[in-house]
């Protein structure tokens, strides 16, 4: 199964990149932006065919490696 996960900084954690991207967009004339937060996106193809189990495996990966839970959260957004 293909499992997609996104990893984002936790709500209260400073996102220096998002902040600077926001300012640059503003400078380029995109004036409607309230906030930019940057994250990471993973597509992981696992051998498991049961969606629930596949999700569990990728969650485990997020917990142990992909996300730094000190400052980041993850979310499984798609399983197919």
């Amino acid at each position, binding site marked *: 199964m293909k499992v997609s996960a996104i990893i984002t900084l*936790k709500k209260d*954690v*400073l996102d220096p990149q998002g902040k600077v991207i926001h300012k640059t967009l503003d400078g380029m004339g995109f004036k409607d932006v309230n906030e930019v937060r940057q994250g990471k996106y993973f597509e992981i193809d696992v051998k498991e065919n049961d969606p629930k189990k596949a999700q569990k495996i990728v969650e485990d990966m997020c917990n142990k490696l992909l996300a730094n*839970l000190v400052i980041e959260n993850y979310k499984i957004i798609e399983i197919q």
Partner: protein
Amino acid sequence: MKINEQIAIDHGLKKEEYKKICDLLKRVPNLTELGIFSAMWNEHCSYKSSRLHLKKLPTSGEKVIQGPGENAGVIDIEDGDAIVFKIESHNHPSFIEPYQGAATGVGGIMRDVFTMGARPIANLNSIHFGSSQNKKTKNLLRGVVHGIGGYGNCMGVPTIAGQTSFDSSYNGNILVNAMTLGLVKKNKIFYSKAAGLNKPVIYVGSKTGRDGIHGASMASASFDEKIEEKKPTVQVGDPFTEKLLLEACLELMAGDSIIAIQDMGAAGLTSSSIEMASKGNLGIELNLNKVPCRESKMTPYEIMLSESQERMLIVLENGKEDLAKKIFDKWDLDFAIIGKTTNTKNIELYYDERQVATIPINTLVENSPMYDRKWKKTKLPKKNLIKKEEFKKFKIKEVLGKILSNPNVCSKEWIWQQYDHTVMGDTIQKPGGDSGVVRVHGTDKAIAATVDSSAIYCWAHPLTGGKQVVCESWRNLISVGATPIAITNCLNFGSPEKEENMGEFVECVQGIGEACEYLKFPVVSGNVSFYNQTKEIGIKPTPSIGGVGLMKNYKQMITMDFKEINNLVLVIGKTEGHLDQSLFARNILNEKNGPPPEINLFNEKNNGESILQLIKNNLIKTAHDVSIGGIITAVSKMCIKGNKGIEFNKPKYFMNEIEYLFCEDQGRYVIEIDPKDLKKVISILDKNSVHFDELGKIIDKNMIINQKTKVTIDELKSYNTNWLKEYMN
């Protein structure tokens, strides 16, 4: 919320301390006030366990412009120039999140330096990890190195030297100590003492978020099983914003708008505002609604205790607000007038037009607790008797291979190649030498800096160890041809509430003090980090000493790579064969007891000054001090760096060859001289009553130790350079 004793204890305060707060205030504090007290009274900000002992350190001298008590120390380097420098720990945050912990440590120390008006010109670091066998070590090392590089490289400040060690006592508590040097004109130094009434208090830099709330309390609590719960307090560093903050501050400092300036480090807005007011004997009033916040609905408690990075607090001259704002706007940084100085001698906080806290400043600073903790003296251990026959089973070449590839001796190139060490175009001695050296931009002068620690010696006998680290720092400066001026110290110890750990602290400080006094090498800044332990076990006592020296003519700088075939190699200082606590004793003989090598301050000073005299007379081609691993380790490194060999003379000494080569007697240097200068060199050494041995002469490609033992330079290189690279890949 009604405050009670339990809430105070949850804030890391002791019962008695809570009682003292209530007595001083003559009432029960509210939550914001309690937060402020807990931040100001914790070990990190109040130095409550260490103050009594730190007072004994020598902190003045003819070159000292500013000793401890400011953001950083300042020394005079003549011609109207001064160097601002300090070392600081970021141990606990780095263990929790190595990248951000180390990065914000580097960011914090750079802010301490540029707060005083100095442009940072060099970074150094002293990092200590658990045993290489420990499964956490590799990730921690990688994270810390990436963090230090990530921040320092982005700031465009070269990282010119450092120290890395591995010891199982750091398994659950690594050490990350970062040091920065900055250059400033003597008449443009800025201090944190506020002056004058109704002066605007300005907030600049990044916005305030919920980062690291209670970080300063975290730094004062030892790790236990609940470590996971402490995670959300880790701060994220933004070196880009700090670079802008640096440029903006220096631009504002070029004029005469600033009365006082202080960076928001540990305990953020709380400690910065209180320190400025306290030094100026003033009050301060802040309107917390004016503080630029990143998150909505931040409470006064959170705003006061946030440890968001890259922020500064400034007391400005009246009427300079617009000029200052323009500069910070140009650099795209937040700027807000958040309060003013007052004559109340209180800190008064307002939020939503209500007073949310009012505390007399003297209760937070002068009346903060000070403890004379119980401590235990360490006896000098008995010397081990090693039988001569024992040495027979060792082959010198095998032992040398083990010593050179020992994690604490091997080349740290893998680390420092990840630090930009050449930006700013003035680095004339890169990492890997005895000291890093940078030129004073646009002059003939250069500044040498080194950071050292010897936890093993300090653990075996803290008093001797304390002296030894200072001497090692002194030697490292002398070896590159610099005159030592002053030091900064970062004192990393276990819990002050344990008599053994407190004893280690007291006696190390005493040793540091004695050596500094004798060598006229005062302490101008520093920091104490206690509670470095996991569960009940403290780390080995690890004072890190950052030494700084001056070279009037950078063209006289000395390096440690052997230069020319047929030149002579001398050992300066007497070799007595002290093996206890040496790398050889501990790692080859597996003998962990015994006293560290003795320190003779007279010899130390005399030998060092004689080396400087030889350098001034252009008689030394190469120099390197002898430290762990003894003479042969020192010489091996000189061979590797210079890609030259050495043929040892037939020994004239009365001891076993192994003792001679691997012992760690102090106060020694290896130097290379031109044979035609031998007479002149001997005459200077004799006149100064300095002992020396003629060790051998430089040859091509081989180290010939005796008739039976020959090692090629390539072998030496592979012993020394492979371990760390292979370990990390």
